């Protein structure tokens, strides 16, 4: 019996979400008295997982130049999960994690539970807290299956370091079951993505036009933050819709979310509700965002933000 976690990586390096998943998986494995097993693809730094108490790590090599392939990845993970008699499999809530989860669930006849925000409160049958209605509420879900795939909301559990000396094994890459093929990836690798960011800086209509976005970008750059925007901003084409956060856009679960000139429509607030600390800068004291924020400044973004950038830069040096 085992708990299996899928470790996402970029260019061979395990992502921070991987360490969070390992921390969570360790806690689940301890509760069940089982081994914690990781699965990664083309990892070059397998030792980086050591501080998270993992017992075994399957490192799968895929052909050079190949891309993420949800079908082959999920078949490979499902194969390992079957071999190790996994009872719980944990994936992240990234685009790839939520792609793999349902495929794994179908391949293993397991239940899929998305948006998990805490450790299970019981294991047979498994019961766990999840967010629903796009973070407007939570529920306690009881599984009817023996094997369960959990998609853990990012930043919901955090990191938990401990001793470990992982045993690395190899595993063949499963064959494709469909003809779907990734041909190219267009990804800004120089910028931190909303899903991976500790800090997100977001702009709304209050910025008056795309020509003023340097304020958002400069603030994001000094904070190593990702940039985001509200729905009207993306609908008007000021920013790409990949930056739209909210109920119909991306969810944000960062440590710090700074909203500038965003009024705080209920759909926007739902999407960012999982962020730990929220700061709002808006010249309208009646903006609904002030009710959802932890810290706020009532003021003109065009005056406040440049000062904030300057102070943060000075602080860095």
């Amino acid at each position, binding site marked *: 019996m085992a708990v299996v976690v899928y470790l996402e990586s970029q260019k061979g390096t395990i992502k921070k979400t991987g360490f969070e998943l390992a921390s969570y998986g360790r806690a689940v494995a301890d509760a069940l008295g089982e081994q914690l097993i990781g699965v990664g693809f083309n990892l070059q730094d397998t030792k980086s997982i050591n501080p998270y108490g993992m017992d075994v790590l399957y490192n799968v090599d895929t052909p050079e130049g190949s891309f993420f392939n949800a079908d082959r990845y999920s078949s490979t993970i499902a194969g390992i999960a079957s071999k190790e008699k996994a009872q719980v499999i944990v994936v992240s809530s990234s685009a790839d994690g939520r792609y793999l989860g349902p495929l794994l669930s179908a391949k293993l006849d397991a239940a899929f539970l998305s948006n998990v925000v805490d450790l299970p409160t019981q294991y047979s049958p498994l019961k766990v807290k999840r967010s629903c209605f796009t973070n407007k509420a939570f529920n*306690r*879900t009881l599984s009817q299956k023996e094997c369960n795939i959990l998609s853990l909301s990012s930043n919901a559990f955090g990191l938990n370091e401990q001793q470990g000396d992982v045993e690395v094994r190899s595993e063949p890459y499963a064959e494709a*079951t469909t003809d779907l093929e990734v041909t190219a990836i267009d990804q800004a690798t120089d910028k931190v993505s909303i899903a991976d960011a500790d*800090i997100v800086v977001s702009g709304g209509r209050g910025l008056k036009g795309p020509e003023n976005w340097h304020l958002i970008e400069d603030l994001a750059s000094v904070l190593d933050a990702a940039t985001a925007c509200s729905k009207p901003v993306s609908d008007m084409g000021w920013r790409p819709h990949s930056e739209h956060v909210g*109920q119909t856009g991306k969810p944000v679960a960062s440590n710090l979310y700074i909203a500038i000139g965003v009024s705080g429509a209920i759909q926007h607030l739902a999407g960012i509700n999982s962020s730990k600390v929220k700061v709002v800068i808006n010249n309208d004291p009646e903006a609904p965002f002030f009710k959802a924020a932890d810290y706020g400044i009532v003021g003109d973004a065009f005056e406040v933000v440049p000062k904030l950038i300057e102070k943060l830069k000075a602080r860095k040096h």
Partner: protein
Amino acid sequence: MNILVCISPVPDTTSKINFKEENTAFETLGIQYVINPNDEFGLTRAVHLQQKVGAKVTVVTVGDTSCEPILRKCLAIGADQAIRVDLQPQDGFQVATQLEALCKKTNYDLIITGRESIDYNGGMVGGLLAVHMGIPYVPNCVHLDLSGNDVALEREIDGGKERLKSSLPLIVGAQKGLVEEKDLIIPNMRGIMQARQKPLEVVSPIEVTAATLVEHYEKPPEKGAVKLVDAEDIDGLIDLLTNEAKVL
């Protein structure tokens, strides 16, 4: 060419969420239901393909009679026919299994689901159905072009896009970007009148138990009041974020 668009009625995005029966059920009183926004982007793309390549567009939902106004709206938007599987589903697994039974009776070349429904956010129906049918699945789909049997697609990933190719049959999980907000079709009077005459078939469900059951709901804890900082006191804000919130 046959396109199936899977529709989920969801509470309007402005809805305040409340629960009843000691927090074991969703309070539907006063809730306005709409087509799940992700499904609507998919339906719009399907109607574009209907006009471009002469595809026949069927919409389907798994739900009770209260879902029929939403199906009629889909017909008014441009779908050719509607199917309602007569079951109030408990989870996405049940929905996917019902759809699988339907897809085994009729061949659909392209099946479109939403990336996720905005109420339960499961995001699993497309993926489950794809594996059960043995066909490919592309979620977070922001581009879909057909050329005969070949399909060119784009999937939104964290911080970018992935380009993919495949062939029909195939399932995609639609989202904003597959069509833009401005492309969404608002039904006109002619569409609404025609929708009344279009077929809406009610299908009996097959027997399948849910994989998960929701036992209890809760709302997020009440938040404390915002701490306001003077616009001139930027140092004060940085100090609070550094020493109190500890996020800098």
